[in-house]
């Protein structure tokens, strides 16, 4: 009964006409969703004569757009973006795994309250907190540091991400207690157990955290907008707006820069998409 594998039973559609319709539909879907991104890729390498046109067919291949983009300092913005995403991801993972270790593996009074407090921040969209956050960033309470105008201001706040802690806590709960007890009998302390027993088992979850964290940080716009005080701290995402506003630069440079901002997320997604899909569906349906 192969035909009943799917709700509409499209797998069972046979015959030349049915095939043609099916292939036509797939082509349309790919054209609509991937066409614009492909046009970006192709056009970045083309000589842009008309500032309005994107092209799916390569012609007049050239690296001029990238050369001009480099002259405009795009490599600096790219470097900023990479520093922010690298630092932010490291911090976010470190914070999430340590917190998850306590929340999943230790029993102490208040554990439920803490988990609730952390998860409740999922209801606080960062856009809504933007204005008070900008005040906090210019004078961080207790330590009284001004993070505005430094890349650190874009890195430190992304460390606190409830979704990452949730994914990690759920995963660590499922690690069998026997593993930990065996290590404890061998005289291992918390740190050792965390590092050599729990973390290695959690490698798949770390993959999920990595890709979701990367996508989340790479997509950040409002936080860099609040933090950057001048173009020196622009990430590539912020730079796209100022490049657009600059008539003299031309669309070619904008397209080339947009491609540079697009590629890392596509590469990371394609490399880790199996984990991504699993995390997405389990997060949406179970979590």
């Amino acid at each position: 009964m192969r035909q009943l594998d799917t709700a509409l039973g499209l797998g069972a559609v046979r015959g030349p006409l049915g095939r043609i319709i099916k292939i036509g539909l797939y082509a349309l879907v790919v054209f609509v969703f991937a066409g614009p991104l492909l046009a970006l890729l192709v056009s970045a390498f083309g000589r842009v004569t008309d500032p309005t046109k994107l092209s799916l067919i390569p012609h007049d291949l050239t690296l001029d757009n990238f050369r001009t983009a480099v002259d405009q300092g795009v490599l600096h913005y790219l470097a900023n973006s990479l520093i922010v995403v690298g630092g932010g991801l490291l911090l976010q993972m470190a914070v999430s795994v340590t917190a998850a270790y306590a929340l999943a593996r230790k029993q102490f009074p208040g554990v439920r309250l803490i988990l609730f407090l952390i998860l409740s921040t999922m209801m606080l969209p960062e856009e809504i907190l933007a204005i008070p956050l900008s005040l906090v960033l210019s004078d961080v309470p207790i330590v009284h540091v001004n993070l505005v105008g430094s890349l650190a201001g874009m890195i430190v706040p992304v460390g606190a991400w409830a979704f990452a802690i949730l994914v990690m806590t759920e995963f660590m709960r499922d690690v069998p207690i026997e593993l930990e007890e065996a290590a404890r009998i061998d005289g291992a302390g918390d740190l050792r157990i965390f590092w050599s027993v729990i973390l290695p088992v959690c490698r798949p979850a770390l993959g999920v955290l990595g890709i979701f964290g990367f996508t989340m940080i790479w997509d950040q716009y409002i936080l860099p907008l609040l933090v950057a005080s001048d173009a020196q701290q622009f990430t590539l995402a912020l730079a796209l707006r100022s490049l657009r506003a600059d008539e003299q630069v031309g669309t070619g440079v904008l397209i080339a820069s947009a491609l540079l901002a697009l590629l890392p997320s596509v590469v990371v997604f394609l490399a880790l998409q199996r984990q991504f899909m699993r995390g997405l569906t389990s997060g949406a349906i179970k979590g």
Partner: protein
Amino acid sequence: MTTTLAAPPDRVRAAPAARRRKLSTNTSAWLWLAPALILFALFKFVPMARAISMSFQEVRPYLGDRWVGLDNYRTVLGDEAFRAAAGHTVVLALGETLGSIVVGLALALLLEGTARHLWFVRTVVFLPTVTAMAVVAALWRILYYPAPDGALNSVLGWIGLGPGQYLDSPHTSLWSVMAVGIWRGAPYDMMIFIAGLAGVDRTLYEAAAADGAGPLRRLWHVAFPAMRAVFGIVLTLAAIRGLRVFTEIFLLTNGGPNGSTEVVMTLVYKLGLERNELGVASAGSMLLLVATVGLTLLAQLLRRRS
């Protein structure tokens, strides 16, 4: 006799040790939690508390803030621009939610299955969702170029549709922004729907087919009822996504032309960071927060019940 005599001292000796052990587990647990707690306090809870308190105050730098009660809320709710922005936000949230669900469901039904070519098409279709909003906005600004030889106008020209103004006309700007939101959001919904469809009991399809039901009736009577929970979740998630929209508006139109795409978040941003009316801006974002939290709780309720 000896055991009962021996027992009490034992217990007395054991108690402080146990307490000490417990105390040290507690402290170590808090140590493990400390980095997260500090970051959450500084960048989530402190801003949250500030937002609440600012929404009841006239914020005056260097002069000290002045308590004004509900005045900020009254100002915001009485402001025509805010009411218009709230209307746009609701239209946008509704349109993007329903659009993403319809398109996402259609995609899911078309691309459901285990064949390798389906997996490929699904991956390709999903790319807009992982693309950063800044890139999406830059790309669509170019696609929407309003001249007859702009990219989208050229494509529409093939099928004989006239050139549109898209983002540049107040009549089409909100719909154009909505279309971008659907383009980016539908693939996400598709993946959740595909996961939902995968959970439908296959034998039910066979039973329906044995009863003579065609594909459409199978969909309506078997697949959809089985996915009720998934619909509820997708609906609320998408609505929450729609309410807090900021980046795409900021980058595509910045509220223009003529305020036709101004939403609550872009207005709040302008009030707070450009006009420095922090109190009124905070009141506006508090109202949006209440809506978001309400929707989130509704989603939780739906999830519990399913």
